[in-house]
């Protein structure tokens, strides 16, 4: 719209007076056709993205959901099925445990390391940071699945949540340190100076001065970590065996592959309950932090 209004004053009509009429006419036709094609293309894009998602919104409320999207026969009974399922709620609890555990590890170790990196000049600091970041994007869960599986088996952490948390934390830490160092760099140093004058030790300064000021940064990293862990399929799929230890991401998969009869009422309700927390968190944080949040959200 804006484009056409801006271009028209500059159209070279005065130069070609005799043909101005037909040119303008053909231009409006062309303009009209372009608008229609544009709207059509946008419509197609919308349908492409909306079509699979529609099922997630309709099927959980349908008393007899099918694979196809259709107007639901409204009910909340499917959520009752969810409550009665032996593993469903437990798996969401496991996802929460994995998320909380990873957040705890990543925040503690990450803030210690990023604080030191932000405040003390160590030679090759930037090189180290970039090397770590490069490494974490090269050594992905997929490429390192065999050695990771072997390592966790060897140290006896197979089928434990601790093993999953450690592997996830190791993969996320370089990015966390990178983000947190940015936040730490922006904290004015005068607070720490006065704390030191009163004789505070470095760890006291970190706990009582820096962490409270860096709280938005830490909250940001916590949400980012939770979103990463919540949807992660490969690591728990690889390292956890017994059904009661599996997080929601893996249980969801076993729902539709291992059970002989697919229970769509259970699957649809579970999908929605499992997806809503990240969707809500995501849009909240997205509004607050914008694109910075997306940096490495799904790796």
């Amino acid at each position: 719209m804006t484009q056409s209004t801006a271009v028209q004053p500059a159209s070279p009509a005065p130069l070609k007076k005799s043909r101005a009429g037909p040119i303008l006419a053909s231009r409006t036709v062309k303009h009209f056709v372009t608008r229609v094609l544009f709207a059509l293309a946008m419509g197609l894009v919308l349908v492409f993205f909306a079509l699979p998602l529609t099922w997630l919104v309709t099927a959980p409320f349908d008393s007899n959901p099918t694979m196809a999207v259709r107007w639901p026969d409204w009910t909340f009974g499917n959520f009752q099925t969810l409550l009665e399922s032996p593993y469903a709620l437990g798996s969401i609890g496991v996802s929460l445990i994995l998320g909380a555990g990873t957040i705890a590890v990543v925040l503690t170790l990450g803030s210690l390391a990023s604080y030191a990196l932000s405040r003390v000049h160590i030679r090759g600091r930037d090189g180290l940071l970039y090397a770590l970041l490069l490494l974490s994007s090269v050594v992905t869960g997929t490429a390192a699945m065999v050695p990771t599986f072997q390592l966790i088996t060897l140290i006896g952490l197979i089928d434990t949540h601790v093993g999953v948390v450690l592997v996830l934390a190791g993969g996320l830490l370089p990015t966390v340190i990178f983000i947190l160092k940015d936040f730490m760099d922006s904290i004015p140093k005068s607070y720490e100076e006065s704390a030191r004058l009163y004789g505070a030790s470095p760890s006291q300064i970190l706990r009582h001065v820096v962490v409270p000021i860096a709280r938005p940064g830490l909250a940001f990293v916590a949400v980012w970590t939770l979103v990463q862990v919540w949807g992660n399929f490969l690591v728990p799929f690889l390292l956890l065996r017994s059904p009661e230890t599996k997080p929601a991401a893996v249980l969801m998969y076993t729902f539709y592959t291992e059970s002989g009869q697919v229970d769509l009422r259970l699957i649809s309700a579970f999908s929605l309950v499992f997806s809503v927390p990240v969707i809500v968190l995501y849009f909240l944080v997205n509004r607050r932090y914008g694109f910075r949040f997306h940096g490495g959200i799904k790796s």
Partner: protein
Amino acid sequence: MSVAMSSARVRRTPSRVDDIAGLGRVGAGLFMAPALALIGVFLIFPALWTIYLGMTNYRLTGLAAADPDFVGLDNYTQVLGDSSFWWSLRLTLVFVVLSGILGQMMLGFSIAWALRHLKGLAKSLTETLVLAAWVVPGSVGSFLWLALLDRRGGTLNVLLDSPGTAWLINYPMASIIIFNIWVGTAFSMLLFSSALASVPPSQMESAEMVGATAWQQLRDVVIPNIKGHILTNTLLITLWTFNTFGPYLLTAGGPNGQSEILAVYIYRTAIPGGQLGKGAAISLIMLLINLVIALGYIHLARGKKKRA
């Protein structure tokens, strides 16, 4: 010379400013040690250990599980001589190019370009839908596609009136490519919308003043301005698409390995197949390809900075 420089720096900035928290080198080291140890054990060590594991006949079960033998480069000759490896590598290449570079990047850019002047409902609706596809956990997203493409009662077969068409069996590669475009386009869309916002409006205006068509504006004004973004996006999308395990949830590599991209091939060789040594050998090849992509990108980015 370096001594003179460092002493000059010390004089200019007294050590107190450099070390405001009184940590000192040792303290800083202690603060960093736990994080570096965790990264070392669970990120760096596995990568290095792959080199050794790939030279053993480690198996998940049986004799070779308890007492593996060193077999040298046997796994590599076996893998490189195996037509299924090359098949999988070719599928991966097709997958990365079509779903990542062409699909996600082109579609993401087009959406960002189309939305740049739109406001209100149309814009937020599009953005929300594209983002939602990305945010939904992978195992939910893949089930949504299983339902869409279901043979008996899937939405697509109902809409196209083509009952019984088994999309995932007849067109496995096309299915995972389109699925991955659906999942990942959001990132490119977001990156390119913030890139387009950074193009100086004055340049766009003068291009419009001289009557440049949309295509000419794109080629002569927009693309030169967002080259860096395009490069970053290409690197990230290539790495992520190359390493994604998502398609496993949709087709598990089947039917008959027709959609067995490298990530799925490693998993099927090592875990259900039990050949950990061979799996490690393929893993190392994958790590090296990742490294080449990343280093190639750094090289390009440096060259760009030098020329600028």
